[in-house]
């Protein structure tokens, strides 16, 4: 497939897989997993400086990546905006993965607070990658606000439940003309592949790799799943039919007897 780049904020990317950096058993496994996944963008959190930690997080990465800082753990617009501003200051990037949750148990996005926050962040010249629920109208409204990438969940963060509402995802893909990723809920490589086959622009995942028994191999599997799904989508998947359609012609068959 020639030149199927993903363009974000004017930059070209070969990989359509964004990887999180949390929950890995150790740094070596994290670095190997990120490397084999061939991801070019990784997510990071913004947290209070820990003076007792051995090394600085960014110094422990083996390779240069584009950083996508998140607002994980924020419940209010004020918290999210301050976190985004601190992220911009420390990482010198306008990119922000906006997470604005409503509760600690399900970690579901708060759509009302989220919408207003997106508006403010776009006004402040952030490139917003917004983690949101899989509501087609909300996704469309967020896209219309000027978010860089709209990223609906397929199921709750870290649940590994995979795609729970394929119909909504189909509608989202149909009505949103911009870049749509899926963020949160991926459990297995086939989930990632299925999403890419539906025409989504990419996948963001973390737990499904980091918490697997073999994160390095799982990262490889996710990479291949994303590539496979994308290739399938671009190749034009055949329409579904309720009846059979012969692949071998009846013409020339020996007579019925």
């Amino acid at each position, binding site marked *: 497939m020639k030149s199927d780049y993903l363009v974000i904020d004017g930059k070209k990317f070969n990989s359509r897989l964004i990887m999180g950096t949390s929950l*890995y058993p150790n740094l070596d496994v994290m670095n190997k997993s990120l490397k084999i996944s061939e991801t070019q963008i990784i997510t990071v959190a913004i947290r209070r400086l820990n003076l007792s930690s051995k090394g600085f997080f960014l110094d422990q990465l083996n390779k240069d990546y584009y950083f996508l800082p998140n607002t994980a753990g924020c419940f209010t617009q004020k918290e999210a905006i*301050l976190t985004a501003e601190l992220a911009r200051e420390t990482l010198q990037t306008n990119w922000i993965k906006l997470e604005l949750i409503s509760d600690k148990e399900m970690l579901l996005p708060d759509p009302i607070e989220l919408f207003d926050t997106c508006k403010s962040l776009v006004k402040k010249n952030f490139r917003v990658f917004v983690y949101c629920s899989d509501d087609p109208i909300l996704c469309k409204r967020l896209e219309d606000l000027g978010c860089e990438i709209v990223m609906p969940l397929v199921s709750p963060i870290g649940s590994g439940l995979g795609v729970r509402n394929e119909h909504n995802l189909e509608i989202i893909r149909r009505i949103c003309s911009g870049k749509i990723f899926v963020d949160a809920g991926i459990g297995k490589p086939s989930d990632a592949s299925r999403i890419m086959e539906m025409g989504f622009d990419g996948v963001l995942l973390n737990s499904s790799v980091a918490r697997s028994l073999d994160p390095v191999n799982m990262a490889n599997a996710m990479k291949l799943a994303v590539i496979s799904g994308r290739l399938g989508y671009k190749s034009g998947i055949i329409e579904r039919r309720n009846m059979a359609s012969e692949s071998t012609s009846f013409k020339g068959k020996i007579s019925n007897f």
Partner: protein
Amino acid sequence: MKNLKNKYFINGKNFSCELKEPYLEDLIEIFLNKSILKEPKIAVAVNNQMIERCKWKKKKINFQDKIEIVAPFFGG
């Protein structure tokens, strides 16, 4: 004579130090115990307002100001 230290609130904890002129940059350096030049990837908020790095030197700190010093960390 009793030595009175100034009290600040940094990263959710009380922090006391002696500063004749309480400016943010000096306070950060005392807190970190090193020059800010050695920590290029930190950002700071005072009373829930982000303060650009170039303004740390002239930003005066009041007692009991709430200061947050943050850095990138593992995240999903």
